[in-house]
């Protein structure tokens, strides 16, 4: 009986996957086995186990995905319970990822969810390589930008600057802010990445410090005063921790005092939390709508049963209801997802020879370039203190400076002539060393040679 009802659960999904259609992806091959394959071969990482993450895990599990993992560094707080529906009052204080994974596994048989109770930066890059799709349920731009750069780092281009399909790591990203939300599909190298359209996220409003210090007018001013000025004044050297309730309570009472002094009303504990942690009010149903859209996109990417969202959906439930899909275009020169300029070099070419070469390169004509490779500054033209520290690299072969890998990405900043005007620019360079042996392969060969 259990089996029959389990099969019943998938009746609608099976229809979607087994029948041909007109607006399906060109690679779609309808088949009754598709659901099994979805469960067997597709591995999805859900980043974030909060309002969106809970919904995503549930939706993905109910859409036939069976290999899920979830990563979140947060623990459950009482204030989460209204919308993060997988959590109960006795879960407060426990890992969101662990509890969410267990709850969904209890409810949807056959699904396996591996939780990771840690920061996204704690995992090495290889951890992320393992997934076929990464679904984001995050509330921070920084975290999105990080995962985006990780996903784009797997992307490789062929010699004609076309993305290699097998290196594309699809991202599905959801975000909400009160009644507003977005869902987007990022196919690195094909559709714009997070960094291509970073301007979609306006910088957070910051109050002038002197307003906070001298002429506060709102409750938020009073809270920011306690947070940014008063805390340091009183707790010399002690770092403020937004996750420490005692610290938050202190900010709240200081903000109250200040509000009283200036005859300002409206300072509450939850507003204090909201201002200090920059919490955006969350509405459960907006999360549900956005997550549902994201989970469906993941299903469409994996199975091809329909064309995917192209490529950015906005949902606005404020003043009526508006939804809109915008097809943003890639920034061809994007430093994160763009191909960069292909440069083929001999393994003996030195850094200073490369610098000369960049000036003569017809596409680049980059004068006075500074070069950086994976966070290491190989050469800096300025300031003098850094020029001095990096000068010794100039006579060294670039191949050695780049860790003797047969290929790699470097970035160069310098000046180029644009319509007769000298403009500063930052370029991504795809360096390939001619005749270089893959170190990995070389090591294997060496292993067979007796010492």
């Amino acid at each position, binding site marked *: 009986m259990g089996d029959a009802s389990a099969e019943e659960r998938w009746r609608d999904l099976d229809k979607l996957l087994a029948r041909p259609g007109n607006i399906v992806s060109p690679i779609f091959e309808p088949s009754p086995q598709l659901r099994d394959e979805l469960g067997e071969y597709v591995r999805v990482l859900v980043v974030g186990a909060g309002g969106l993450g809970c919904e995503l895990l549930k939706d993905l599990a109910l859409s036939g995905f069976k290999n899920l993992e979830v990563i979140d560094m947060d623990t459950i707080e009482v204030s989460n319970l209204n919308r993060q529906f997988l959590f109960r009052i006795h879960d407060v204080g426990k890992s969101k990822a662990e509890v969410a994974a267990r709850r969904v596994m209890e409810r949807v048989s056959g699904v396996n969810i591996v939780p990771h109770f840690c920061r996204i930066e704690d995992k090495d890059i290889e951890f992320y390589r393992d997934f076929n799709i990464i679904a984001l349920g995050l509330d921070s731009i920084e975290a999105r930008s990080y995962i985006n750069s990780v996903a784009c780092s797997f992307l490789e281009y062929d010699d004609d600057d076309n993305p290699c399909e097998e290196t594309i790591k699809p991202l599905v990203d959801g975000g909400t802010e009160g009644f507003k939300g977005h869902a987007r599909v990022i196919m690195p190298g094909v559709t714009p990445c997070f960094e291509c359209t970073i301007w979609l996220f306006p910088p957070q409003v910051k109050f002038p410090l002197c307003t906070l210090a001298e002429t506060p007018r709102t409750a938020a001013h009073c809270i920011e005063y306690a947070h940014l*000025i008063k805390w340091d004044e009183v707790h010399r050297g002690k770092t403020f921790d937004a996750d420490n309730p005692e610290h938050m309570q202190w900010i709240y009472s200081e903000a109250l005092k200040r509000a009283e002094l200036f005859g300002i009303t409206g300072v509450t504990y939850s507003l204090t939390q909201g201002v200090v942690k920059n919490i955006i009010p969350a509405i459960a149903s907006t999360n549900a709508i956005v997550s549902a859209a994201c989970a469906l996109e993941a299903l469409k990417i994996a199975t091809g049963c329909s064309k995917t969202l192209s490529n950015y959906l906005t949902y606005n439930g404020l003043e009526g209801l508006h939804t809109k899909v915008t097809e943003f275009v890639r920034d061809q020169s994007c430093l994160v997802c763009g191909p960069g300029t292909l440069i083929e070099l001999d393994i003996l070419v030195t850094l200073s020879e490369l610098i000369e070469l960049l000036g003569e390169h017809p596409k680049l004509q980059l004068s006075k370039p500074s070069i950086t490779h994976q966070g290491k500054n190989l050469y800096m033209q300025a300031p003098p*203190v850094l020029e001095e520290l990096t000068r010794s690299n100039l006579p060294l072969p670039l191949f050695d400076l780049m860790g003797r890998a047969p290929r790699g990405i470097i970035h160069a900043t310098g000046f180029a002539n644009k319509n007769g005007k000298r403009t500063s620019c930052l370029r991504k360079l795809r360096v390939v060393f001619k005749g270089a042996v893959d170190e990995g392969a070389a090591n294997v060969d060496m292993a067979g040679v007796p010492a």
Partner: protein
Amino acid sequence: MIKLFKIKDQKKDDAGNANGRPVGKKQSAGELRLHKDISELNLPKTTTISFPNGKDDLMNFEVVVRPDEGYYLGGMFVFSFQVSPSYPYEPPKVKCKTKVYHPNIDLEGNVCLNILREDWKPVLNINTVIYGLNHLFMDPNDEDPLNHDAAAVLRSNPKLFESNVRRAMSGGYVGQIYFPRCCV
């Protein structure tokens, strides 16, 4: 894409990790932009920069301003810069590490400079901020005070303000507050 995923899965089983080249440290777009800003720095004569964590950590650095005119001539003021990965969408965090008697810098080192907060725009850069800091010493203003007392004195009695600044810079008390010496 399941087909593709399947192929990848098999490849992984066959070859272990051999075909996956290790990928090095990620450089965020913010770090790259900062690299560009730093490599194009054009510092005023009054200013030097240093990188306490070495040549590869550009996110944390120190700027020393030695004003060559105005009230603060002869002083030496150290600022710490902390740049977040979301730079340039977030401004750098700047603190004055030298205790200074200044209407726009408080005793904790908070600096009231509009481009560091409300007027920050991603088109601005580290150079702009450094010029802004220099400007604060040329032209301290009493309209956006962070040190209320200093601002009031500057407004009502510039002569007294000047002697307060000198006293603070050579190491001494202004009112109840002691300022360590910061003259070169």
